[in-house]
């Protein structure tokens, strides 16, 4: 037995040596997404985004072949770090795209600090503190964060919809905290209310919402819901079954394609639900139309229209490839030059121009949307308004923005 192990080790060592020799004309790229657990569908669409970008470049950048290695997590921070360690320390990828979920992003940022020669690009994780507080030098986020995604929604709910008091239902981790903050900050500044005891925080993967639905107060104008994937599907069905009549306001992933495109009963009652996020299904821009067409062609079994996960992974992968072109595929200095190229990168995406701020966080356009029924019965998000070039501090100076405090269950307190 031990003889066998030794032989395997020798072979493995020989392979890895020859691997570095071959690495002259190919670069390994790791991609990490949630291919297990409550966010499986989301992770699958994220991977589609990675493949779209690679396909666009013909799996080549900077004159070198790109070899894709995928890793899977289940939305928990430790599973993300475990998968990242495997990709970085065993497969030896110099570039890693991912993760998908908010708290995973926070964990990967901390892990990135221990691997200074590896370049990390975000997938779609959108917790605020991944880049706002104590960012890692080698972690780049070309997709925006959860508070940026909410740009314009608080104002819209207060001014156009006339809501004054809302209840909040969200999953209990960093990304929904960021989303709730992004929605409530302008909503409450205008005079809206969201009582602390009308905010419900449930664990990821919760299936049975009937008791939460029963506990929702009657004296509110609407419910702000920030749930994702299977959680959102379960909530919407049970809300309808329980005869829920309050209007909803959706978080970025609550009424997007990963939920609207799920199998089973169509959810007519969500028509009219306002939301905001980095993509809008019906945006009439040729760049977006071309992206949707490419997605539908490449993945006939995907969603009717790409979700923000395909979009976020696509943009981050594309950024990685563009910067590789710029440095001619040269990562020999531990990626220093490469990261400099990334920091200065500014490029055109299916949803407009994107560039980074000094903490390597994206500044990009955000879409205010409303759910409509599409021509063939699919539910879609219609563009109401494009909010141009939203930055992470939502327009206020960095120092002042930090005074708002860390996102959490009771921030903002709305008092």
């Amino acid at each position, binding site marked *: 037995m031990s003889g066998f192990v030794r032989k395997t080790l020798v072979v493995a060592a020989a392979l890895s040596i020859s691997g570095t020799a071959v690495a002259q004309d190919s670069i390994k790229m790791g991609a990490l997404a949630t291919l297990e657990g409550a966010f*499986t569908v989301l992770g699958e669409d994220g991977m589609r985004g990675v493949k779209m970008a690679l396909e666009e470049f013909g799996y080549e950048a900077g004159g070198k072949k790109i070899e894709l290695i995928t890793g899977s997590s289940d939305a928990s921070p430790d599973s993300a770090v475990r998968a990242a360690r495997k990709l970085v320390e065993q497969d030896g990828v110099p570039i890693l795209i991912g993760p998908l979920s908010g708290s995973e992003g926070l964990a990967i940022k901390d892990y990135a600090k221990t691997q200074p020669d590896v370049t990390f690009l975000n997938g779609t994780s959108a917790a605020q503190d991944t880049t706002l507080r104590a960012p890692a030098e080698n972690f780049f986020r070309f997709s925006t964060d959860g508070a940026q995604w909410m740009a314009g929604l608080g104002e819209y709910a207060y001014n156009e919809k006339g809501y004054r008091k809302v209840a909040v239902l969200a999953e209990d981790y960093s990304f929904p905290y960021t989303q709730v903050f992004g929605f409530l900050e302008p909503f409450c500044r205008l005079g809206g209310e969201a009582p602390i005891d009308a905010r419900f925080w449930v*664990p990821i993967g919760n299936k*049975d919402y009937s*008791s939460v*639905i*029963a506990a929702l107060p009657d004296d509110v104008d609407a419910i702000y819901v920030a749930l994702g994937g299977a959680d959102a*599907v379960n909530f919407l069905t049970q809300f309808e*079954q329980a005869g829920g009549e309050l209007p909803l306001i959706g978080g970025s992933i609550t009424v997007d394609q990963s939920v609207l495109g799920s199998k089973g009963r169509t959810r007519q009652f969500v028509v009219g639900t306002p939301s905001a996020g980095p993509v809008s299904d019906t945006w009439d821009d040729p760049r977006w139309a071309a992206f949707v067409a490419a997605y539908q062609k490449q993945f006939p079994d995907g969603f009717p229209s790409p979700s923000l996960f395909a979009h976020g992974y696509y943009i981050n992968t594309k950024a990685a490839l563009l910067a590789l072109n710029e440095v001619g595929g040269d990562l020999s200095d531990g990626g220093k030059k490469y990261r400099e190229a990334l920091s200065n990168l500014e490029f055109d995406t299916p949803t407009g121009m994107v560039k980074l701020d000094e903490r390597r966080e994206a500044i990009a356009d955000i879409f205010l949307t409303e759910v409509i029924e599409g021509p063939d019965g699919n539910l879609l998000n219609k563009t109401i308004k494009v909010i141009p070039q939203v930055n992470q501090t939502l327009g206020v100076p960095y120092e002042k923005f930090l005074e708002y405090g860390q996102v959490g269950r009771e921030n903002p307190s709305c008092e």
Partner: protein
Amino acid sequence: MKQFIERHTFWAVMIMIAVIVFAWALFAVWPEWLIDAIGRKKTFVNTLFNGITLGGLYFIVASGFTLVFGLMRNVNLAHGSMYLLGGYIGYEVAEASGSWFLGLIVAFLAIAITGVLLQVLVFRRMEGDDLRQTLITIGISIIAADLMLAVWTGTTYQFDPPEWLYGAVNLPIISVIKSSGDAVYIKYPMYRLSVLVVAIAVGIALWLFLNRTRIGMMIRAGVNDREMLSASGVNVQLVFALVFGIGAGLAGFAGVIGGTALSIAPGEDVRYLLASLIVVIVGGLGSVPGAAIGALLIGLAEQFGLAYFPTYGVVLTFIIMVVVLAVRPQGIMGGR
């Protein structure tokens, strides 16, 4: 009954008072001070019903689990996979045929056959080696989870139950009296009430089967002493295969029932396996009435936790388990 009152007058009075308070809480319109203290009546009544109906679902899953254990001393850790597979098969059949009921029946039969095959082809080979059987079931559950992911992907599936099962009904329980004098009745999803009815029906059917039929008698004898049973000329293998089939079939059946109430997606297998494990640990391994009591307790604990302190609600389930293990390690209805 009369004997109980004479012997334990104090407890009888206490139970009476509890029942009266409970009935009052359910049917009376709540005064202001009570609403200030524990919230609205609507929340309480809905949570109560949710707990009971979720308990019903847990019972359907766990009864099969406990039945198999009781007879074969085999902790089938692939029970959750049977649940999920039943849900997927039921979904496919219901989609293809347009009949939800057909999906339900096919799910039961298909998983029952799977169970029989597992028993005949796998478990019979390692007769009497309980630990090995249990480890094999873990292996099966891992392989099954990946195969199902490959076939049905990670998408969340939801059933389309018949129209008359959809929507909400008014319960004959008044929530509040409006200022205009109109009574507001509490609404409750029709489907969840049906889950409860089905669970009770399954419970009664199992009881009748175990206590009133010849095969049931053999199974009970096997639970007590399987060597003695086979010595008296009964084909034990046949009984084993039958019980395994019924236990697995119930899991598949629950897959459709539960998939309609909530949804089916990868990961559900582990969730229901864990729920069944907790239910039978609390109720007592091998006891069907124990599974009913355990399921009810866990269902109520989960729902009240979720409604009244959502962040830490999960802890409540485990507190119950810890208390039961500390006070009565064999479970509430567990023998020996």
